[in-house]
């Protein structure tokens, strides 16, 4: 491939990925109440609606609440599973790890359907706790893989060094292992939180009618006639997501974390 | 007529000048080692010769043809990479036959050629193996066979043995040298190991900070270093400055003796080098007027004993065959003598 062709190709790909959001950004700051681009007059009225009307505030609160707790649950499971695999390096640890990879391999509809009948049966259908637990368990794959990178970078020597200096297993974990894997834990937490906030199908099938999350709200709006508030909500999402990732990139080496570091 | 000629090759990466006016003539069938520390430009020079990098300026001629306009894939260079770069998706025979395949050689011919080369490098019958199933030394041989399969005009090797253990490395050095002599292919070998360079090269080119310090036979660069850098880089050496005046050589006020005929005409300050094996140590007497110092380190190197003696701020290294127990211990006084006939004055 020649350099010119490469450049054209990659720019086209980048533009196609970004363009939809530029249009949405334009729509969200348009003063008119019908969807139109380019904007005739700039206005922040749709953002004001988003942040003042309870129609939108309740879904925002629900989404954030679910994300905060689901991410915590997910990270504790992933951390425990990784610790066990790292300590035992055996069948038991591998089984737990494989179980954690499972949800990523299956189409989300199957998981959503299973969760839906399960929560209905035990009488928690429509409860926010159900969504939290399901998100926490189903998104465990990401922190699992990310934290595994942290444990892989941990050499046995470091632990043995800590032991020879008289630390107990718990002290070793608290003073050596945990600080070393902490950046990976934070990254895992942030990823689950972002994905949880953005997730639609599972939230919808578990408690879509009772607990309206922001994606459900947007979807319903788009489907049954919409106003530019949706655009401002979508922009809020995009900005929040990118913002969290940018902050993350300040604290951790994202390229290395994703396995792309070069010497 | 020289086969490959480099004329004033310069290479710049951004503000960093990797090569500064490198000129070199390489004869047909010659085995050249490019030797130097990391960042000296040796690999860059090899990549320019291969066509994997393009020089910022300067000319590159192969048998009178300008190589600059010829892209890598039409230069006919067989190259062995530091990582070996064997194709993981091909088996051993397919790897070796690859260069012939892209040249459109018929399948039976190229596979026979691969068989022959496997025999040559001592891997008969391993053609069907996956590359991943080979040992480190076997992979080296496959990489060499693959580079030679295209009957290259130039055979290039970029630190091919640096990842191997010492025993295997020595073994392969001997094999490569024999193979090269048998085939008579012009070879350029990059290394940072001066012992490796000494043992296989017809001619060693020592590079430092992008410049050629010296190009010469192993004996020349060892015994008659052209610069202080070469004198210090090619193994242990005693390098010091001395005054030449009135038919005498004086260092730090100590007369070292009468200069040899070649040195007699010199006057003023010059840098000299004396190999450790030419020094003699003796117990000083009250009458000793030459170099007298204190032994500060003694170590046994198997075949020889190395003794370090400090004289004032300077330090001298002496080696001798270890057929007896060390005569000096740390803290002993020792007198140093050497024949100026064995000393080499570095041309200034």
């Amino acid at each position, binding site marked *: *491939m020649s350099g010119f062709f490469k450049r054209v*190709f*990659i720019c086209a*790909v980048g533009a*196609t*990925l970004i363009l*939809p959001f530029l*249009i*949405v950004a334009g*729509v969200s700051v348009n003063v008119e109440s019908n*969807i*139109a*681009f380019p904007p005739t007059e700039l206005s922040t009225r749709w953002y004001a609606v988003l942040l003042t009307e309870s129609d939108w505030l309740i879904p925002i609160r629900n989404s954030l609440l679910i994300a905060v707790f689901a991410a915590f649950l997910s990270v*504790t*499971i992933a951390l*425990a599973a990784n610790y066990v695999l790292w300590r*035992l390096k055996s069948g*038991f640890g591998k*089984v*737990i790890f494989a179980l*954690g990879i499972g*949800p990523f*391999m*299956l*189409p989300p*509809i199957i*998981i959503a*359907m*299973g*969760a*839906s*009948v*399960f*929560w209905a049966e035990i009488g928690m259908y429509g409860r926010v706790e159900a969504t939290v637990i399901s998100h926490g*368990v189903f998104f465990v794959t990401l922190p699992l893989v990310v934290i595994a990178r942290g444990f892989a970078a941990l050499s046995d020597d470091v632990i043995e060094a800590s032991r020879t200096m008289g630390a107990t297993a718990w002290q070793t974990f608290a003073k050596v292992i945990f600080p070393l894997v902490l950046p990976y834990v934070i990254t895992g937490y942030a990823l689950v939180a*972002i994905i949880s906030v953005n997730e*639609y199908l599972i939230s919808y099938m578990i408690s*879509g009618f009772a607990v309206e999350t922001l*994606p459900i709200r*947007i979807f319903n709006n*788009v*489907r049954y006639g919409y106003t530019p508030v*949706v655009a401002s909500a*979508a922009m809020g*999402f995009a900005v929040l*997501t990118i913002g969290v990732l940018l902050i993350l990139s300040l604290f951790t080496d*994202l*390229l290395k974390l*994703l396995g*792309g570091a070069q010497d | 007529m020289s086969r490959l000629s480099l004329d004033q090759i310069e290479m710049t990466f951004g503000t960093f000048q990797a090569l500064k006016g490198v000129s070199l003539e390489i004869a047909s069938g010659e085995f050249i080692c490019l030797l130097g520390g990391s960042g000296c430009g040796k690999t860059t020079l090899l990549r320019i010769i*291969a066509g994997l990098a393009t020089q910022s300026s300067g000319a590159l001629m192969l048998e009178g043809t300008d190589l600059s306009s010829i*892209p890598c*894939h039409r230069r006919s*260079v067989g*190259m062995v*990479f530091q*990582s070996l*770069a064997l194709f993981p998706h091909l088996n051993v025979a397919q790897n070796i036959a690859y260069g012939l395949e*892209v040249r459109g050689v018929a399948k039976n011919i190229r596979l026979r050629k691969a068989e022959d080369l496997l025999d040559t490098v001592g891997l008969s019958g391993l053609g069907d193996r996956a590359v991943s199933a080979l040992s480190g030394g076997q992979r080296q041989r496959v990489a060499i066979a*693959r580079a030679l399969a295209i009957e290259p005009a130039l055979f290039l090797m970029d630190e091919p043995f640096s990842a191997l253990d010492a025993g295997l490395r020595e073994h392969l050095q001997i094999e490569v040298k024999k193979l090269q002599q048998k085939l008579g292919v012009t070879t350029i070998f990059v290394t940072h190991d001066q012992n490796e360079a000494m043992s296989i090269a017809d001619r060693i080119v020592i590079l430092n900070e992008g410049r050629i310090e010296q190009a010469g036979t192993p004996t020349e660069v060892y015994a008659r270093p052209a610069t202080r850098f070469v004198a210090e880089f090619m193994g242990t050496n005693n390098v010091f400055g001395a005054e030449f005046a009135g038919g005498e050589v004086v260092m730090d006020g100590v007369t070292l003796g009468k200069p040899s005929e070649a040195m007699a005409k010199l006057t003023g300050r010059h840098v000299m080098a004396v190999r450790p094996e030419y020094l003699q140590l003796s117990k000083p007497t009250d009458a000793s007027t030459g170099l007298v110092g204190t032994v500060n380190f003694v170590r046994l190197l198997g075949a020889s004993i190395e003794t370090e003696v400090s004289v004032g701020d300077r330090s001298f290294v002496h080696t001798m065959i270890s057929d007896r127990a060390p005569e000096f211990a740390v803290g002993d006084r020792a007198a140093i003598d050497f024949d100026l006939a064995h000393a080499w004055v570095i041309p200034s």
Partner: protein
Amino acid sequence: MNRPLIPHLIGLYPLVMMCLFFLGPLAFMVVVSFYERDPLGFYNVAFVWDNYAKFFSSFYYTLSMRSLWSASLGAVLVVLLAFPAMYIIVDMSRRWQLFWVILLLSLMCLSEVVIGFAWVILMSESAGIPRFLGWLGLWEDPRSLSPSFGAMLIGLVSLGFSLVALMFYPQMAGRDRSIEEAALTLGTPPARVFTKVILPNFRPAIISSTVTMFVYFLGVFVMPTMLGRPQDWNMTVIITDKAVGDANMPLGAALSVIMLVFTLLIIGTLLAASRKRGKA
């Protein structure tokens, strides 16, 4: 002596969580798929094959074929675009790589709903490409481009692109570039290095990511409903429709079980194939 005990105890926590809330619901879903529908509530305990029997009708046959077709087409397209893109991106400077990684991560995390909505706007006659083409005078009578099969496919590709690209990233960035240089010195024209050396080396990764995307696209809900016409809807939309819309959980469960078995078969085949290749 108690050293192995504590890790085992700690291991119980993830084990119980995953079994109870991941495997448990899947197992219960299989049970529910044999229940009877209760028009007034969710379901009645029973053991009937009716729900599975419904699958063997021409409606579900067409639906299945359509789901397989859109998922496989989307998977092939997205890998075809993401693989060369990643090949180019890993050679960029660190700064641009970071830009792309953040862009891709953002898109990976961003809701299907938001991406879908963005495309709805981009293809609408009032704000998007049709309006722009109309303004340029290239399109006399601009109409909305969605919903349509093409729009849905674009939605799928833009949804899956970030995921595949990030899957390729570590292997692509960490590859031994001297293999490509070796191919050059051995006489491969630069234009053919990609097909002669890079593609064959990445074949396992390409196959596994295509299959992963295929499975993923089988299970998408938002893109078909937002960007596709009813005749483009896939199995996932119908399952959701039956389970939530009609409150027919047993039928939804049965259809999900069929999809689950199908998915497991595909993953099993892929694993077996890669194990075989590993041995050869």
